[in-house]
């Protein structure tokens, strides 16, 4: 049960993008369409799971005052592996994501989970936590990527939805990323506020 709870926390209540607002650089930069968003999300998920496992395994031997450099080196090693694998097997995606694959090293979500979860919990719990957080991140990226692709290009995952009827090119440019993410955040916040008000009204009865 605790595992399911960890998994769900990452997906919803603690969603890294919409609730914690972490890992903004790849979120904004790689979501020009849904496919890139999916690729970025999965690459981050892989690094997150592997680094959480290792950090959790070595937690007994890591001296407290140099733990951050150690975690970063662990993460950087896995990022190098993912980078080489993507270069080998998914060359086109590797080329479009470009700089943002090496930048997974400094993604605050990964270091944040290593520091606040994996360094204190068992390996199994850490895997579930990484899965939840990673899938939550991937889901948010796909949502953002789909909205931007739909508004900017009229397609989702390359499938035409309304074709050329409406194309707001700005949504694919940098400002569009900020505007769409801002509006999505507002939407999730208003759902949260609505639910809390409902819960309060329920208590009064």
């Amino acid at each position, binding site marked *: 049960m605790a595992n399911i709870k960890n998994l769900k926390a990452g997906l919803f209540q603690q969603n890294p993008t919409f609730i914690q*607002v*972490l*890992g*903004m*650089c790849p979120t*904004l*930069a790689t979501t020009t369409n849904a496919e890139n968003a999916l690729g970025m999300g999965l690459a981050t998920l892989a690094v997150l799971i592997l680094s959480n496992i290792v950090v959790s395994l070595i937690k007994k031997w890591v001296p407290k005052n140099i733990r*951050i*450099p150690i975690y*970063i*080196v662990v993460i*950087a*090693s896995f*990022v*190098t592996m993912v*980078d*080489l694998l993507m270069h080998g097997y998914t060359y086109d995606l590797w080329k479009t994501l470009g*700089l943002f694959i*090496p*930048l997974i*090293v*400094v*993604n*605050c979500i990964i*270091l944040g989970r290593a520091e606040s979860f994996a360094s204190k919990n068992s390996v199994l719990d850490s895997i579930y936590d990484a899965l939840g957080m990673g899938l939550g991140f991937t889901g948010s990226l796909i949502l953002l990527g789909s909205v931007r692709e739909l508004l900017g290009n009229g397609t989702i995952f390359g499938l035409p939805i309304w074709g050329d009827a409406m194309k707001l090119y*700005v949504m694919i*440019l*940098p*400002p*569009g*990323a*900020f*505007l769409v*993410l*801002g*509006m999505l*955040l*507002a*939407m999730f*916040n*208003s759902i949260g*506020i609505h639910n809390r008000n409902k819960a309060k009204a329920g208590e009064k009865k």
Partner: protein
Amino acid sequence: MAPNINPFILFFASIFTSNILLANFLGMCSFISISKDITSSNGLGMAVTMVMTITTALNWIVYNKIIVPLGLEYLRYIIFIIVIAAVVQILEMLIDRLSPNLYMSLGIFLPLITVNCAILGVSLFMQLRYYTFIQSIFYGLGSGLGWWLAIMALAAIRKRVDKSPNVPAALKGPGVTLIIIGIMAMAFIGFSGMLNVQ
């Protein structure tokens, strides 16, 4: 291999037309969370500018004089981040020794900087685009100043917006901040086309 760009043009381009924050989305996390407060933004901007200039220069030397001759290109991410972490650590100790006042205003932000993606991003861009040593220094300095400019502008705008009673409840906090940044990014897009630097 090195692109033929005047370092001064590169310097201005990295402040305005290809601002590291608004055009490349690097360093967003601390940009959003620290910009609540103008004094902290100023301290962080200063620290980022300093660290970025030093690490870009150092990473250029490390990459071209150590990594390439030894054929260790596949280790570059790990080496770059270690150089950055070491510089930040040494800088923190030095500032603490030399100027306690500066340490109070700047030192607390230094640990945050190791994981600021703008710093690693600039080093990676420097390497990807084959800049020369002089170009790298100007690029690092310019990107740092551009980051500083952007965070100061955002902090000043947020100071007013956060107090405004007209912001809808759901948009408060990160939501409205992102929309402000979006509008700022549009303004900075206005600069593009004036200089083109890749």
